[in-house]
């Protein structure tokens, strides 16, 4: 087998982990609150700027900056739900998507206003691991592992804790759960905070691999939505599978042709798959 192709496949696996983590948070919100945060990738961007700022300008240790960013984006998620989603929960679902679209515009241009369009780098260089003939970026491996840990943590939280059970229950039947004494409003707020926190975690991992700029959200946003839908609404496991399928397409096609063509194929595949399996690739 071609050694460079193998490298591309490995990088695809790493990217898959990251995309899975991104899709996870969005999927949680999509599944529980039935709202698409179209500004999700912009929350990640905000987190990346927070880390950049705290680490580079205020010289906070990187891990502390990351923790602060996770908390900050989690808080942002909560506020986003409280201020923007909650007042229009009762109106047509598409309105909620559009309102978060306004937030997308706001975050993107506010970042431009504050930081300009420069590409900024946190300046942390992680070593490259050599596995035989294959070079593997440590930053990517770290992102992959952290994404898996994050996913596992979310799974355990949802499956094993009382709160997690309530969240899963409400995603299955929001009316009945209200009658059973579950405070729907509180669950939504907690879910939004967790979704934001996952975006913050993704920001910590992305900032090690990519430069921050106001439009970075547009690079990851669309593909994340597609992964979510392909995995099936609210289906965490499906989301992870879809993330790895998409990332392999991007990696392998990108290796043979170009990055743009690989994304084109990924989006075309999404359109075809949603027409064949509208409820997700794992739906029966």
């Amino acid at each position, binding site marked *: 087998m071609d050694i460079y192709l193998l490298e591309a496949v490995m990088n695809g696996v790493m990217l898959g982990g990251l995309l899975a983590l991104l899709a996870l948070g969005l999927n949680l919100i999509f599944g529980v609150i039935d709202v*698409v945060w179209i500004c999700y990738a912009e929350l990640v961007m905000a987190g990346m700027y927070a880390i950049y700022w705290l680490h580079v300008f205020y010289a906070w240790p990187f891990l502390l900056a990351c923790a602060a960013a996770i908390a900050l984006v989690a808080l942002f998620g909560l506020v986003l739900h409280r201020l*923007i989603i909650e*007042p*229009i929960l009762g*109106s*047509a*679902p*598409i*309105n909620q*998507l*559009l*309102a978060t*679209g*306004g*937030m*997308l*515009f*706001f*975050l*993107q*241009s*506010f*970042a*431009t*206003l504050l930081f*300009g*369009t420069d590409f900024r780098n946190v300046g942390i260089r992680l070593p490259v691991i050599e596995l035989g003939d294959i070079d593997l970026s440590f930053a990517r491996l770290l992102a992959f592992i952290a994404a898996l840990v994050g996913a596992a943590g979310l799974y355990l939280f949802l499956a094993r804790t009382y709160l997690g059970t309530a969240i899963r229950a409400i995603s299955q039947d929001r009316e009945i759960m209200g009658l059973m004494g579950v405070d729907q409003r509180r669950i939504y707020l907690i879910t939004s905070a967790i979704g934001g926190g996952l975006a913050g975690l993704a920001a910590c991992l992305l900032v090690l691999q990519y430069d921050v700029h*106001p439009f970075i959200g*547009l690079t990851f*946003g*669309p593909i994340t*939505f*597609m992964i979510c*839908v392909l995995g099936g609404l609210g289906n965490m496991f499906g989301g992870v599978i879809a993330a790895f399928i998409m990332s392999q397409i991007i990696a392998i096609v990108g290796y043979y042709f*170009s990055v*743009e*063509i690989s*994304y*084109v194929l990924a*989006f*075309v595949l*999404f*359109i075809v798959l*949603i*027409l064949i399996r*509208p409820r997700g690739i794992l739906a029966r």
Partner: protein
Amino acid sequence: MTDTRIAAALGLAALVALPFVLPTYFLHIVIQVLLLGLIYTAWGFMGRFGLVSLGHGAFMGVGAYTSALLWNLYGVTPWLGIPAGMALAVLLALVIGYPCFHLKIVGHYFALVTLALGQVVALLIIAGRDVTGGSLGMTPRAVGTSWLAVQFQDRTQFYFIALALWLAVLGVRYWASHGMRRAALEAIGEDETAAEAAGINVLSEKVRVFVVSAAITAAGGSVFAQYIMYLNPETVSGVGISLQIVFAAIAGGMYSALGPTVGALLTLSLNESLRVLFGTSFIGAANTIYGVLLILFIIFMPRGILGVVEQVLRRFRPPPQTAPAE
């Protein structure tokens, strides 16, 4: 009714007189308002019946690049290039729309499918950089003033082209929003299953609206690029412009005939005044305000500016004999 007719006639007379009294700079803005306004109006064809497309940039891009490439590479006049772009957009709308509506893909899902479509077109334009210039964009080959090339040194000709197109789109909207067709589409927007049961061919109505909207958007994108004389995957295609179309239409009020045009006026004048006031040192200011406004609009006045204006006007008017449609 006669009141409205007189107002319309006066408005039209004012619009015809406009290029002779307006300074060039303002005429430049008005031409853009008309061209973008007609694209936003076309989006509203679908939007007001609950079909939210987040990928209208795809049709704009297809229209703009088809006519510009035909002109640059083969010297084909935009008079043929624009219909060619419209035909391609129609084809694209059919390929996406038919299976989507057949399988009852609506709401979030339809929005995301169109978002993917917008990405596909924008990425193909970037990937075809040998021909399209990629992210750097391209300019149609300039030949000075020529009707054949649809290029004019004087803005007045362009103004009348834009005005004619804009009026034609309003005409299409008027035609589509009266009688049975509007009733059918409104019924579909409210409850598809019930509409189907009432004997409406939901599938063909939706496909028709989508196709008409796509064709007009392609034509608008093409003429807009022809006017600006610059095409860039960011400005005529992709997520950014697709969302801009959606929000301008909503802010202006997609349920009113002139709403999307008001949206175009609002966004362009906001952009321009901030640019004039603060210069380029304040990049992003316009869109920051814009983003906040959009959130407020969707929460507090989802029917947009004109929707609210109409509501207020209705309050001061004696109730008409027949019940109002909206």
